[in-house]
């Protein structure tokens, strides 16, 4: 159901982003990149915040449920995916409007740092050890990494940046954007949020299966081997010759 809604919302986004919404006075047609660039970074922020919330819940709850750790990992993976998308479409947008793909200005630099930090988080998750060791160390990193988000968001106000200031989440509450453009942006946020929700559910389930496989893998392998041996007693004499 969630997947169907995500597909429908994406179709709406294509219709509004490429069709119904008007071109911008200054940026002309390139403004349509906005409908992917902004929603992907917002969803990435949400993904990383949820990673931190799940990490904190794992660390500070009495039960220490690995379900929270798996959700944190899945959410971080999708956050990295969405920040990557933000950086790619942002570079394309930058080339069309600024005239350059990349500049080491405050917003771009802090976003790159956010991206690299969460790649590090994902690497830490794969360092080995039992699931609870993995969960503890990645939870600490998940809680620390999320502190970068306010830095990224406020970088355009803290330092002089080539990147423009916020249009929607402005401190004065005023939104200086054409109505249809704003609606298209809203459709983009809904579409990417649904995509995130859909993927994070499935990815969490896959991570559960991976943990389950490694936890019960040995017992299952012994059981399977026993069953095979009972089924084909004649093959016992040639044990170890076939693929496992």
């Amino acid at each position, binding site marked *: 159901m969630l997947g169907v809604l995500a597909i429908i919302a994406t179709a709406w986004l294509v219709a509004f982003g490429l069709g119904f919404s008007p071109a911008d*006075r200054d940026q002309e047609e390139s403004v349509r990149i906005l409908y992917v660039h902004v929603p992907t970074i917002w969803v990435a922020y949400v993904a990383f915040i949820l990673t931190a919330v799940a990490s904190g819940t794992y660390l500070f709850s009495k039960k220490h449920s690995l379900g929270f750790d798996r959700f944190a990992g899945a959410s971080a993976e999708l956050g990295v995916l969405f920040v990557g998308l933000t950086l790619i479409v942002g570079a394309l947008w930058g080339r069309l409007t600024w005239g350059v793909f990349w500049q080491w200005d405050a917003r771009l630099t802090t976003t790159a740092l956010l991206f690299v930090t969460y790649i590090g988080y994902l690497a830490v998750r794969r*360092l080995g050890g039992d699931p609870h060791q993995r969960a503890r160390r990645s939870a600490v990193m998940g809680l620390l990494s999320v502190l970068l988000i306010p830095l990224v968001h406020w970088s355009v106000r803290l330092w002089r940046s080539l990147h423009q200031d*916020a249009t929607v989440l402005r401190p004065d509450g005023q939104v200086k954007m054409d109505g249809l453009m704003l609606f298209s942006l809203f459709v983009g946020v809904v579409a990417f949020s649904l995509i995130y929700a859909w993927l994070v559910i499935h990815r969490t389930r896959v991570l559960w299966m991976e943990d389950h496989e490694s936890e019960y893998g040995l017992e299952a392998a012994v059981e399977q081997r026993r069953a095979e041996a009972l089924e084909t007693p004649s093959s016992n004499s040639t044990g170890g010759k076939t693929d496992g």
Partner: protein
Amino acid sequence: MTDLTPRPVDDSGSRPSRRILPLVVLALVVAAGGVILTQFLTSAVDYYCNADEIGQRSGCDEERRLRIQGTVTDGSVAVERGVTSFTIAFNDVTVPVHYEGEPGGIFKECIPVVVHGQFDRGVFRGDRVEVKHSNEYVAVNSDRLTEAEFEGCEPGST
């Protein structure tokens, strides 16, 4: 008695690589983080000087290589023999700019830009022009009045 002897599995090389890969990624992440932080400290902080800060603010001296922000003055753009000349202004202070080539992006009059370059006998010789578009989004042809206001731009409004 059933034979439960584990079957031989050829996993030579797979386990070490599975352990080393995250460590390699972590090392690359640390290295990339170092590069990004270095760039941040040397380039991102104080990305540019405003046109009215030249010679007034620390780090905005005419003798050094600069990045200057200002709005392209209305009617100032001229292209001659491959050189684009224009003036940029901020808080009523104007700076003449010469740029070899045609600026990319959405460069035009009345739009804020950041020019990279160095002063030469009172003229700022730019080698890169970046357009710093605003955070306002206005539909093209949606409002004649807005269009008219835009044409009569005021420099240094950013």
